[in-house]
């Protein structure tokens, strides 16, 4: 490729184009103005979405990355612009979301002088990025961006931040771009060791009551088909973690539901009855394990994992298999015998029956007067043939939606898992819709989380981002209130909310909106929202003191999951 003499700013845009970027979320400001000026000439190649807050930009980039499998890109200026990205970086790091964030920085001569809008972004973002780098010379730009994309997307993905001093944005360089494919200090993944796979297969072939626990790693490795083939060949029941949701169709006969604190009854208690636990691309989060000392002690543990630091971090693995889940599953499939575990599977179905009678039926087909979150989720799922993208915020609506929404294809669930970031839902849904304009995207948010990033209604309106926003309004911070009810003697300390007129707010932003307070309006309203061309805000007033069950209380064993208060 011939070299061209261009500014550092233009080099940033050209480097992004070389990486196939066509979508950027961001917010301009003083120190990133040269880059925005360069962007102005590339509106045919790149679409930039101006959010209403940098946190909105980075969550949108996360939503975009999750549904597309591509790297999410966002821009912010120095100082407060950059510090507003921190929550999103922490969220993306803990949930392994590939992002490249580019921040403007004051001119290099001003570094360390407390200049206007100067903050030590590299220092502040260090614990919440997979890698970060400060550019002070324009010549470094192409290489830094090439490295950023390689690091963000390979191995266990994560967020990367490049901080570019303003003088480097102005300086002229001879631009030449070379993709980064190898860094000597960085091994993205271990090559799969056939002996490790064989050891795992031997245990699986002998297993009487095996269970598969799969997580985000299956999606990140594009290993959905291999997972399905593996469980179908061996007949092993499979349960998903919150971030594993949608990697297998909800109605797959071997799908036994969700693990964790508010997961399903069967997979939780059966983990403590299985003789072999096969964990694939999951990291034994405390919300999944409950009390670690009482977790799967009876079982042999097989752990398929890309990140060596996750092996034995929480749960000792009897047979670890390091590497990419797709590659190791392919090898595993060849090494396992065809089998079926009908009797064992029927034990899960018996649990499902108990859970349905005690919990699910009351949630999704309630007989009481007040509306439940569960019935809203059920109807939204049914009306879209269980094939929409579900974006949730954090709290009760997240758990209820994750329990009752049904999925037909992978990358249909976007949620903040590890960090539990309230305010994530609305902006992440924008990114998800922009990434997959062909799909229906629901933003399922509570009244609390909605108001943390409600200003993004401005972005949704400006770009007519066709998302279906369902505000499940109980006028409470519902999950905290639930804990206060169960563990703090109903002392509702600062969880009640006096909310604005959400329909009025939506209308002020020029968005179609409606409020539903009774069951007879609900189905019609959801149908209207889906049929409406363009974004829509549907407020559903739900029961104030509804709780999410089942529940594993903090510190309890998964065997002690409770079905009712």
């Amino acid at each position, binding site marked *: 490729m011939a070299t061209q003499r261009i500014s550092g700013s233009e080099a940033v845009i050209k480097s992004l184009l070389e990486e196939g970027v066509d979508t950027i979320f961001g917010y301009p400001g003083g120190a990133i103005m040269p880059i925005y000026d360069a962007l102005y000439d590339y509106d045919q190649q790149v679409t930039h979405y101006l959010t209403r807050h940098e946190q909105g930009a980075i969550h949108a980039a996360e939503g975009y990355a999750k549904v597309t499998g591509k790297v999410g890109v966002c821009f912010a200026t120095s100082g407060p612009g950059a510090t507003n990205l921190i929550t999103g970086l922490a969220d993306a790091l803990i949930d392994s979301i590939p992002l490249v964030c580019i921040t403007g920085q004051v001119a290099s001569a001003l570094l360390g002088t407390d200049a206007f809008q100067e903050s030590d972004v590299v220092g502040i973002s*260090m*614990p919440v990025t997979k890698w970060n780098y*400060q550019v002070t010379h324009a010549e470094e730009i192409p290489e830094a961006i090439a490295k950023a994309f390689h690091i963000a997307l390979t191995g266990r993905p994560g967020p990367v931040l490049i901080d570019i001093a303003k003088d480097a944005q102005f300086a002229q360089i001879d631009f030449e771009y070379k993709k980064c494919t190898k*860094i*000597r200090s*960085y091994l993205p*993944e271990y*090559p799969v060791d056939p002996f490790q796979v064989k050891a795992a297969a031997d245990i699986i072939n002998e297993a009487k009551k095996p269970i598969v626990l799969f997580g985000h790693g299956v999606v990140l490795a594009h290993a959905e088909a291999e997972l399905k083939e593996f469980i179908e060949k061996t007949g092993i029941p499979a349960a998903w973690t919150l971030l594993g949701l949608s990697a297998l169709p909800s109605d797959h006969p071997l799908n036994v539901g969700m693990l964790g604190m508010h997961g399903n009854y069967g997979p939780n208690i059966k983990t403590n009855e299985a003789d072999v636990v096969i964990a694939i691309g999951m990291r034994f989060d405390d919300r999944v394990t409950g009390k670690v000392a009482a977790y799967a002690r009876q079982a042999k543990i097989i752990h398929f994992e890309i990140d060596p*630091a996750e092996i034995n*971090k929480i749960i000792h693995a009897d047979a670890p298999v390091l590497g990419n889940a797709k590659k190791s599953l392919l090898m595993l499939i060849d090494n396992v015998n065809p089998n079926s575990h009908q009797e064992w599977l029927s034990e899960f179905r018996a649990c499902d029956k108990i859970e349905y009678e005690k919990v699910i039926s009351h949630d999704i087909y309630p007989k009481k007067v007040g509306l439940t979150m569960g019935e809203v989720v059920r109807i939204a799922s049914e009306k879209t043939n269980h094939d929409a993208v579900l974006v949730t915020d954090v709290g009760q609506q997240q758990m209820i939606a994750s329990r009752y929404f049904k999925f037909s294809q992978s990358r249909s669930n976007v949620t903040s898992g590890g960090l539990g970031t309230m305010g994530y839902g609305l902006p992440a849904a924008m990114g998800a819709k922009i990434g997959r304009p062909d799909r229906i995207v629901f933003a399922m948010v509570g009244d609390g989380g909605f108001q943390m990033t409600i200003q993004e209604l401005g972005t949704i309106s400006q770009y007519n981002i066709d998302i279906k926003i369902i505000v499940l309004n109980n006028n409470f911070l519902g999950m905290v209130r639930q804990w206060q009810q169960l563990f703090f003697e109903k002392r509702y300390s600062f969880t009640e909310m006096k909310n604005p007129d959400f329909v009025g707010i939506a209308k002020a932003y020029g968005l179609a909106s409606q409020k539903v307070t009774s069951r007879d309006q609900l189905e019609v309203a959801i149908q209207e929202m889906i049929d409406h061309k363009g974004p829509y805000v549907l407020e559903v007033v739900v029961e104030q003191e509804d709780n999410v069950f089942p529940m594993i209380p903090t510190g309890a064993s998964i065997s002690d999951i409770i079905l009712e208060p």
Partner: protein
Amino acid sequence: MKQEYIITVFSEDHIGLLSRITIVFTRRKINIDSLTVSESAIAGVFKFTIVIRETPDRVEKVVGQLEKIVDVMKVFANTNEEMIYQEIALYKVSTEFLFESDKVEKIVRNSGARILELTREYVVIEKTGHSDETQQLFDELNVFGVTQFIRSGRVAITRSNLERLSVFLKERDAMLEQID
């Protein structure tokens, strides 16, 4: 049981890496007893020698987290017995004690320390050794009064012939070739 470990981090020579390494310890509330940074025998490869007191389990986890850092190549954790190590200490005492009796001179001689600088006001003594040895000399000199004292971070070297990283780098290269 907590015991002393020498953690050796081999890395690229990049600005900010020291911070990235130390926050792994800070986040887990592990105190760094000593820290030394220098270039290794391989040009461009830097070596952080970090001494901590921890349980074997926590050390294993810290090593895993350190190895996740993109610019870190390899991390080793060793007990003291597995390595040869030294620290250096400097002591300043008033010159008058040297002339009052031969006690200070004897202490210096017996401990294998040496005098680096001698002025009318003070004498600077240097001693290399393990920290218990440099501490012992401190205690002995402090009977007279040590006016300044400094001990370096630990430097440590393995009992094997080559820099451990050279073998590792070859294996790593092979692995990088193996994955697409």
